[in-house]
Structures are given as structure tokens and as C-alpha cells.
């Protein structure tokens, strides 16, 4: 299925570029960048197209959890860099992201806290901000606060 081509070999694509350019410029105004197969919708009846949120569609075991963790980390980092202090807003967006991975009760998923800590660590938040996140998200549960700290430490 795969045909490799090393750098420096003659590229048949280039030799036809002018002819193709003319043709494509004629055709391109019709539309571009979208999916054209209607029956493509049918395949959604079997699998999720979201980012490995369905572990059966992922390429390796544990990919679904890794994907969830990465999203929470990336989200936390981006949020912490842009915004401070609105924990209701933070939790509302976190809930939305968790749902995209099939998780409604994110508070009971340990990966959530580790990932939040990693995001805070890579955003290089201050100790005071870290404490605020730990206080507001752990709900007094020392185990959750520890997980945030562990994630934070691992990212620093």
C-alpha cells in the first residue's frame, strides 16, 4: 500500500504541475476542503471520529486515557496562561472537554488531577496560583491535591 520516494528522485507531480494548475483553477471554485462522500456519515454509526476518545478506535492500549489527559493538560495550560481566578468557568470548560471523552464525573477520575497539575506546571504558574487551583478543585480531598502536585512537579 505504501510507496516510498527518497529526496532527490524525479517527481512526476512537478512535471504536470502547470497542466494541473490550469485544470484545478477551473475546477476549484466549485468548492474545497470539505468531505464529499455522503455515505461517510454511515461509518460514524460504528466509531467515534473524535480524538481517540473511543479506545477501540485507538492505535494502542490506554490511548483513550492518554488522549483525555493530553486534552486536560493542554486546556489547563492554555487557560492558566490566559485567565486567572474564575474556577466556575474553568470547571465548566473542563466538564465540556471530559464529556468529549465520554466522562461525565471528571471529579472521580484521578487522571483529571494529574493532567491539571501538568498543565499548571507547563504554564509555569506561581506557587500561589497552584495553591488556589489545589484548594478549589480538590474539595478538601488530600489525594486529589497530591495528584495535582505530582502532575505539576513532573512538568517543571
Amino acid at each position, binding site marked *: 500500500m505504501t510507496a516510498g520516494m527518497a529526496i532527490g528522485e524525479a517527481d512526476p507531480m512537478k512535471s504536470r504541475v502547470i497542466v494541473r494548475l490550469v485544470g484545478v483553477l477551473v475546477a476549484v471554485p466549485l468548492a*474545497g476542503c470539505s468531505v464529499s462522500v455522503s455515505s461517510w456519515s454511515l461509518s460514524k454509526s460504528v466509531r467515534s471520529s*473524535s480524538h481517540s476518545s473511543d*479506545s477501540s478506535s485507538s492505535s494502542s492500549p490506554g490511548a483513550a486515557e492518554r488522549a483525555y489527559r493530553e486534552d486536560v493538560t493542554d486546556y489547563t495550560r492554555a487557560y492558566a496562561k490566559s485567565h486567572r481566578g474564575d474556577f466556575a468557568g474553568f470547571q465548566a470548560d473542563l466538564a465540556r472537554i471530559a464529556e468529549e471523552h465520554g466522562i461525565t464525573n471528571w471529579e472521580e477520575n484521578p487522571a483529571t488531577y494529574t493532567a491539571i497539575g501538568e498543565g499548571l506546571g507547563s504554564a509555569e504558574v506561581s506557587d500561589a496560583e497552584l495553591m488556589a487551583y489545589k484548594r478549589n478543585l480538590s474539595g478538601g480531598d488530600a489525594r486529589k491535591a497530591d495528584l495535582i502536585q505530582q502532575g505539576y512537579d513532573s512538568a517543571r
Partner: protein
Amino acid sequence: MRPILALAAALVSQAAVASTPPVVDYVYIEANEGGSSGGHTAIRFGDETYHFQHERPGVLRLRRDDWQHFRYAYGVLENRTMHVSHVAVSDDVYARLRQGFNERYLGERRVFAHRDGLRDDRLLLELLLARRRGEPGGAVRLRGAGFFFPDDGSGASVAALALRQRVQQTYGAEAIRQRSDDIGAELAHLAPAAFASPTVDLPTGGYPVFTYPFSSRYRDLVTALIALRALDRARPLRPGAYRSPSGSAFDLDATERHQLAGYADRLTDDLTRLFRSDRPDWGFAFLVGMARLQALRTSDETGRWVLLDAFPPESEVIRVSYVRQHRGAVIALRTEAAEEFAGARARLRATEDLNEAGFAEVEATANRLLELDAALAGDHDLRVSSGALVPSRDAPWSELVIPDVTQDELARALAQTRAAEKVFVEGLRERYGYDLIGRNCVSEIFRTVDAAGAEPGGRVDTRWSLDFIPFVAADAVNATWNVVQRTTLPSYRRSRLDDMCRHESPLRVRLRESNVITSTIHHRNVDDSFFLLFTDDLVPLRPLFGAVNVASGLGVAAVGIPLLPFDRGETLMSGVRGALFSVPELAFVNLRKGSFDYVPREQRPDASAEVAAGTTSFQPLSQH
């Protein structure tokens, strides 16, 4: 001796990988007819593929798919050849690029969620204002409420009674009433003016910051009240809110029963803690958890799978008439869905501590299977969802608490929200609108790369060149970025052709497979425009074949005219489109490849091997 050698080989191999840089893949996908006549592009990090897709109503949205899924959609179903440029980058550049794309993806989703939030705000304020004016009627739809309401007066659920008892034992006999009173009081005093004005400006950089709006708070509080009412009344699941399939395929074995019973116990603990959660939207999670708990307990009692209906209310729907047209594909998909369900059950049996994600996988795969069964039985349209399936059955709720604010205050808030929504939607159209040259699937990839501040080589600028065209951009990437290897992934049909030519007479294969009538690879897909001859693999004969396709397309269009009253113009349009997409073939340009409605799993490319290739590091061969 052999294990020692294997260990040594593994260590050497790991050392080699560790010393070489990671690879980002730039993917150019050849054109096909319809909305993809200009080609497409994507960027891939391991099994994550990011691409900008032109969608209704004329917006360009960043999408993220796992590589296997992307490959199947574009390379197999759409039958399009992909050209992959492997770009060697440093660890730092790789991380910054991936983060750049993912943060943009998450941020963009947040922006569109804010648009929906403004709409919800407006609808809620219109309803509250009408109620304040004394106009009855109207309701808000609340996710999760549909599992238990409307109350049909049926008897209490044993599982819900046990949960209620547990909550009362933990927090006191009056805990449910107290929490309901607190929420009711907050709702009564909820004033739109106490919330920050709706954000109307689109953020220019970083993660978008929006206020937690009045409507979200109102909905969250009402949903929490509904959850408390369901708990207090120990409401059972409503008929239709769950699935209790018949047949031995849905019998639980001993391990599954044990797992489900254990998970139900843990879920009871989780829900008891959730009852006191500070998260603003705890009510929805509680409703879903309580509904699942009942399904789990019933499964344990009956020894059979009982599962919530997990399709979200806004699911995409495929009409049953379309299912009938593609019955063969749907039957094959059903077989696949059954395998997915079996795989999820096997993982559930093997897991040590079943959690929500593990259970949700079985729930989702079973739902997809049962949905296909129902569609095949002709019962109803087929619901599909490209996202994770989260049970969220909604219900209209008319028992609204009208906040203690004046009619004028509600009217002012409504006017403000209407204005904000209008400005925001206009801004959204401007910012995310598709533009053939200035904002398409190519330009946004390079903009995102630029914004990440990490160049995988030189800079590609689409503003003052033809680099906005996908195949030209692919050449620019090859010339500018640090491309260390290029790979062509042939379209499904071409791949099968190559394979057949290795085992049969190439001439015979070419003749047989050159047209839609005798082809054994491609069976006419009713979604394609009308054409007779394939032209993507025969360049010298392309104008000749194109002329045949144009003529046959026009002929079918002519036949379609008298058929107009009977087929609603389908034949006419198929012929016209067929002729139109054949015109470029006269100038040696191929757009249409023919598409597939389904391809069996064993005939699909091994995308997992390609993922492995994508994550394998390559040594740079040369600098450009």
C-alpha cells in the same frame, strides 16, 4: 541466548530512536468530486491528525481525527491518494507545534460553544420575560432530565431508594430537602444584572475567555433541582430511556456480573460525593450516574445487559430510505459494530477496577450496535454521532422558577443578549468564514504553525503566492520544510489495482477495472455523479475517456428530464454533475475517483502500521 540477543537488539533499536528527531507529517490529499475538488491538506502528529474543514454555513473549522479514522474516510471511502511529507523536527518544535494545534482546536470549540451559549441565554430570557408578563407555556429542554421525567407516576426504583438512603445516612435525613431549598433560593434571586455582560469580541490570542453566563447558571441550578427531585422521589428510568435487548448475545457472564456489581457499588460512592460537589454542573452528572446505577442494578438482577440510550438529543440522523439504499453497507457495519461491542466487553472483563470510561465504552458500542439493528429492521432512522456517546436524554421543563427581578430588568437583559449574539455571530462569520484563497485548509495550517512560533524548516507564506492551492502548497513544504522522506499512500482503488496486477494479467485487470460496469473493485455508489470510465490511473487516455464521460453524463441528464416528476431530479443532477466533473479530464486533469459506501476491515490499509511509521524517527537525508 535468544532472549539476550532480542534484549540487546531492542536496546540498540531504542537507542537509535532516542537519538533521532521526531517526525511531523504534512499530508496532501488529492481531489475528488464535490466539496473536495480543490484537494485537501492535514498535519499529523503520531495518531492525531488536524485538518481544517469547510462546513455549513460557510465556515472553516479545525477538526481532529485519529489517523486510522482519517485514512479510512479520505483514502478509502473517498478513494483519494495521499502524499505524505515526513518532516524531521526537534523535540521542542514537535511539542510546540502539537500544542499549538491542540490549543487552537480546544479554543475554537470553546468559541463556538459561546455562540451556542448566547443563543441559549436569549431563548431563556425570552421565556422568563414571557412568564413574567403572565404568558403561560414554553419550556426549556434540559439534558439528563429525560431519563426520569416527565413523571408518569410509576413506582419507586429499588436502586434509587438505596442511593437515597445512602445519601441520607451520610449527610442527614434532611440533606436532600436542604439542598433543594438552597438551590431554589439561589434561583429565585438569580438576576441577569449580577452577571458580567456577555462577551461580544472574539479573542485575538490565547485560550478564549468568556464569562459563565446567566443562562448556564440558571440551567445548572434547575438541572440540580431535577436531580434532587429524582433522588427524593426515587424515580425509576422512563420507558424508552434505556435498552434491554433480547437474545443470548446480551447475556452477562459471571465475570461481567461481578464487574458490574462492583462498579455499581463504586458508582454509589461517587454519587454520594457528587451530591455535595462544588462543580456548577453537578446535577447533570448526577442524573446520568443515577440512571446508569439503575441500569447496572437491573443488569445484575436479570443477568442481561440493560443500557441507557446513549445517543445525544442532537445526534445526526440518516434517513431510513438512505439506509435501504445502502443496506449492504449497513449490514457490514452491523457486523463491525458487533465486533466492537465484543472487544469492549472483553476489555471490561479484563480490567481490574472498572471506571466510568471503561463502562462507557461498552455502553457506547452496544448503543451503536442496537441502533444499526433497529435501522435494519426498518423501525426508524439511523442515529449516528461522530463524538463520544454520552447519555444525555433531555426533556422539556416548564416548571420554571422566575427570578425575583422586574420585567424591565429582564427586558434589558434580553435586549443586551440579542445585541451581543448578533455582533458575536457576525464576528464569527468574519473570523471563521471560508475563503477560497485567503482562508482555506492550507492557509490555516501555515498560520497555526506560525502562531506556534516553531518552524519545521523555512516559512511558507500563502499570501503572495499560489501556495494556497493544496498541491502547490505540498511542493512548497517539500522545498521549504525539513522533509526527510516522502511517501505516497495510494487511493483504495489504485491500491487494489496494483495488488491485482501482481496476481493477474495487468492488461486484463486494466480493461476490466477501467469502467464502472465490469469493475470488481468499485460498485456504483449512488452518492457519486454519473460516469462510466475511471481516469485517475490512465493519464494518456484521460481526454478520450473524459469525452466519453462528458457525453454519457449529458445523456443521463437528458434522460433525467422526463424523470423529474418521479425522482425529484436525482437522475438529472447526477448526469449534470457527471458531465461537469468530467470536463477537467479533457485537459488531462482528474478530479473524480469514484467513492465507496463501505470497505470491509480486512481490505483497508493497515493504518496502525502507518501510525507507527508516523511516530518513527527518520534521519535527515538532505537539507533543501
